[in-house]
């Protein structure tokens, strides 16, 4: 049974075994996500279990198309709510939250690049600021990993990461404005 069928079956039967089969494969990733926000091992474990409890009812009421990304967003929101309850100041890198809106934009596999597109890309790359341009080139064209880019450029690892994420997004926007949303 695939994920969609499992979701359907759970919605009809409410059988926790089925929900367990859906949820278990994501638990380790979910724990990682929870730890990113809560930064506490016990709280993260509890969060993973609480989210499961919430899904017990939620998934009987709502039809979910893309379980993986739905679960990710749900978990993230859950953690943010926890932090808000703590009344702790939440320091979030805005990049991390912008990232997910890009998800759909980049999934055009059937697209073929032609000469014109490369020219557009070149001119868009030129428009990026120095950091972003440099990191994006090294990452996508030289196929270097973050660590090597950080060593090469002398930037902090996190800076490299966000420069690539920002650069990628800006490139996308630039390409779209040139009439190529592909």
């Amino acid at each position, binding site marked *: 049974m695939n994920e969609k069928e499992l979701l359907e079956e759970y919605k009809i039967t409410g*059988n*926790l*075994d089925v*929900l*367990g089969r859906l*949820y*278990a*494969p*994501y*638990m*380790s*990733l*979910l*724990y*990682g*996500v*929870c*730890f*990113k*926000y809560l*930064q506490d*091992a016990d709280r*993260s*474990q509890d969060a*993973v*279990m609480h989210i*499961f*409890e919430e899904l017990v009812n939620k998934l009987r009421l709502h039809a979910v198309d893309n379980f*993986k*990304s739905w*679960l*990710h967003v749900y978990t*993230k929101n859950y953690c943010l709510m926890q932090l808000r309850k703590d009344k702790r100041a939440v320091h979030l890198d805005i990049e*991390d939250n912008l*990232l*997910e809106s890009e*998800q759909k934009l*980049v*999934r055009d596999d059937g697209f073929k690049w032609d000469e014109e597109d490369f020219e557009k890309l070149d001119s868009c790359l030129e428009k990026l600021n120095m950091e972003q341009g440099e990191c994006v080139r090294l*990452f996508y064209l030289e*196929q*270097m*990993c*973050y*660590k*090597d880019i950080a060593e090469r450029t002398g930037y902090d690892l996190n800076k490299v990461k966000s420069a*690539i*994420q920002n650069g*990628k997004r800006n490139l996308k926007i630039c390409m779209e404005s040139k009439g190529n949303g592909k």
Partner: protein
Amino acid sequence: MENNYQLSRIHNYVNGLMNREEMHALEREALEDPFLQDAIDGYGLQEGVDVKQLSLLQQRLATRIAEQSIGKSKRFYGWQRLAIGATAAVMFVTICTLLLLRYLPQQKSKLTEVELMQDQVFSIAVANTGQFDGEPVIGWAKYELYLTHDYTGKGHKEGEVLVRFKVDEQGKPFQLSINGKEDLTEYTELVKLLEDGPKWRGHEVEVRIDLHQLKM
């Protein structure tokens, strides 16, 4: 499983066990998959993957799922079911009481009716024609009482009948005729009472028996 593979990749990435190409591949994947990116960030902050913790988490999930079946049986005696059970019990007792109340007075009235029917509904008179020597061993009066008492009126035919029969060596009637006919089908109860009743003496008997239903 796919996600165990991802987890070991994350583990290797966070612990610097990957080569450059593998790191680049995972980073690229994570750029397309914010879920993966968040998980990598989380494990990065935790400085590694703690497999023990994760298997504990899997255990907690398994326990939680197993609880469902226990929960189900608990719910079996939940308030709804208990309420239904209690209502059924109350209804059962009520119906029993009503039946009992109805049944008791009915029994009383039945008793009086039965008495009336047995003693007063039929009157039977037996008169010897004196043609033959036969007579009941218990005497005519008692014989008449016997018939009156035991006659229930099954297939009753109103009126007087002339009954003639012979008495065998055991004092039992045989060769019965009623109103000169040997077809006795219309008087089966009377015949049965005569044949199975008190003994006779003598050789032959002729009697008039009046079967009369009293008006109530």
